[in-house]
């Protein structure tokens, strides 16, 4: 038997989704505030561009791949292939951790090139925006770990609705943070 990908939601599940989206709206407002500060500060006479480390492209790819792995985990889990789903969750987790490590590498490269936070407004924003985003990714990895454990321990098999809800939250959060990252990356590299 196949689980419907989008089963009819209970009142409770709808409430959780709503709460999640409202929370993500506040996160969006946070980054919007940072971005507007960036735009204002960009006009300052002392603005000096820094060279962004190319590893950021790799990190972006890892984040995108993480989203893909989560989608795969969702799809196979819905067909009750729990082993594959666990594996896909594991891959997504690894990609997420890889992203964070990659961001650390980027920081490390900049620092060893002598570009620290106060170096220029551009670098200040770079560290702050990547840092703020990374903190959100850490939290998202926590949620992902939880869903992965549900899948792996068989709790998802016994309580498919609970699994589906956890999976939905994880995907929403992860894709959202991917969106935020693409926005941040575009902002700091293009403007």
């Amino acid at each position, binding site marked *: 038997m196949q689980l419907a990908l989008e089963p009819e939601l209970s009142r409770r599940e709808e409430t959780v989704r709503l709460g999640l989206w409202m929370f993500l709206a506040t996160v969006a407002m946070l980054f919007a*505030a940072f971005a507007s*500060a960036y735009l204002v500060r960009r006009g300052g006479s002392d603005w000096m561009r820094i060279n962004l480390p190319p590893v950021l492209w790799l990190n972006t790819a890892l984040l995108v791949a993480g989203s893909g792995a989560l989608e795969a985990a969702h799809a196979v889990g819905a067909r009750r292939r729990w082993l594959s789903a666990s594996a896909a969750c594991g891959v997504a987790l690894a990609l997420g951790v890889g992203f964070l490590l990659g961001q650390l590498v980027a920081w490390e490269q900049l620092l060893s090139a002598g570009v620290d936070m106060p170096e220029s407004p551009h670098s200040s924003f770079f560290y702050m925006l990547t840092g703020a985003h990374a903190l959100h990714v850490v939290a998202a990895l926590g949620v992902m770990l939880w869903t992965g454990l549900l899948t792996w321990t068989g709790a998802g098999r016994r309580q498919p609705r609970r699994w589906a809800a956890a999976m939905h939250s994880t995907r929403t959060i992860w894709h959202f943070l991917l969106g935020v990252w693409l926005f941040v990356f575009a902002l700091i590299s293009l403007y």
Partner: protein
Amino acid sequence: MSHAATTVPGHDQSHPELGFIRRYVFSLDHKVIGIQYIVTGLLMALVGAALATLIRLQLGWPERTWPLLAQLLPKGYAGGVMAPEFYLAVVTMHGTIMVFFFMSYVLVSGFGNYLVPLQVGARDMAFPLANMLSFWIGALSALLMIASFFVEGGAAAAGWTAYPPLSAVATAVPGSGMGQTIWLLSMAFFIASFTLSGLNIVATVFSVRAPGMSMWRMPLTVWSYFIASILGLLAFPALTAAAVMLLFDRHAGTSFFLPAGLVVGGRHLTNSGGSPLLWQHLFWFLGHPEVYVLILPALGIACDIIPAFTRKPIFGYRLSVWCLVAVGALSMVVWGHHMFVSGMSPFTGEYFSIATMTITLPMTVFGVNMLASLRGGAIRMGVPMMFSCAVLALFGSGGLGGLYLGNATADMQLTDTYFVVGHFHMMIGGVTLMATFGGLHYWFPKMFGRMMNETIGKAHFWLTFTPFFIIFFMQHFLGIQGAPRRYYAFTAYDFLRETRIQNLVVSSCAMVLIASQSLFVVNFVWSLFRGAPAADNPWEATTLEWTTSSPPPHDNFGQAELTVHRWPYEYGVESGDRDFADQRVPPGRVPVTA
């Protein structure tokens, strides 16, 4: 709607006897959390009032020495004379505590938690665990804020608006050091706590209403919390962002807000290119909506009290709801009116003036609806009603001052004077304070099962409203005479010497105002233990919280099936020997009018 779909969290679980800790300390019950918030907020109000006393002592009797205070506060009052830096810290903390830790806690998180689930017919908030976290993070943030008085250099001194460079350069004034850092951290916790409780309120209103409780059947109180919470959720992140940047400026050497060429204490700072105005934009993007986050619930509460005491429906319910929506939306785009003299382009100033004038329209319509609700009613002058009338009076007077300030040309003259202080105390201080007292008298019986004392209540009302009005009415005139706000020693300026007597009157009234709050404290505590037992519906009101026992059981409505049949203002109808029908009375018994 199927029955299963109406179960809400907290209802289907059985409630075994919980121990004291789970029931009253780490409780998940929205009623307990609401009361925890209210009590915390009231305690913070005492701190805020003590600070106000210090401010007014200084301004009323500028050349007196205070030996007693010198003993109590040896650093702030060395030699019995208030230190100027201490004055700044006191003003800053008074504003911060009153706005964020008194009003936000009591009025928004406190009453919001207590009332919203009861009034929409839910058994608890949508996310009880997040709700408990919200309170404890909030309590932590309040403790941090208080603790900042005791650190090296004392509490923050850059004003409740924390403008850089004073807030960004750790060596600027003593309070710019550790005190400011703690201030920022505490605000970060505050925002986290407020976000959790805001999410809860919005989700509860959206999705855990009782069957039959359509949006158009929600009391105005619920509407006001709903809109205020959305506003808070959208506006607060701006301050989070600003606080993060400020922390980096302070501790990591960045120049987000610090311009080039600053000399502080004879030392030339190496910062360059930052913009202090950027902070002002971010702060006021939060700050202006925040004032509406506070005033909307105050107005909502008054709108629910008034009909119960005039025995007729509120006037223009739907129009009032639309006004709330309009005010909420507009309040996000008027922040620049706090920055008219910041050197913005005249066109931007013109825009912010026009937007600000626009927002007075729905506000005025809302106020007129409240006034019209009084007309032709058989008014019962209970204490909650007296405070609600005071809400109206202060709302009208404060709004009038707002009209002058919202006009950029007039504001050039009036900004940073006591005119602004008078204006915002009438609004964010007065309207909210009167609604808080009105609400406490009104819902006290529901919360604790006892009535508060009417006689003390009335004495407290007159001894609060009268001095309050005199103080802040007079401050408008001080402002017109050019008296700048936040000055520590106005006697140092020739042109202000004549304001001496006025300041004396203001300070004397302030002492009466603050002293008479002891009446409230006595009434509150005494009534908790000795008040007359309250009936379930002592005010003969119509909203859902009055249909359950006082205090309500853990799941709010017991086993009873809960269905809503009508709007919340069914007053002045024939219903047996009663003149009202609560929201649960079916249409067969009393015709539904809306």
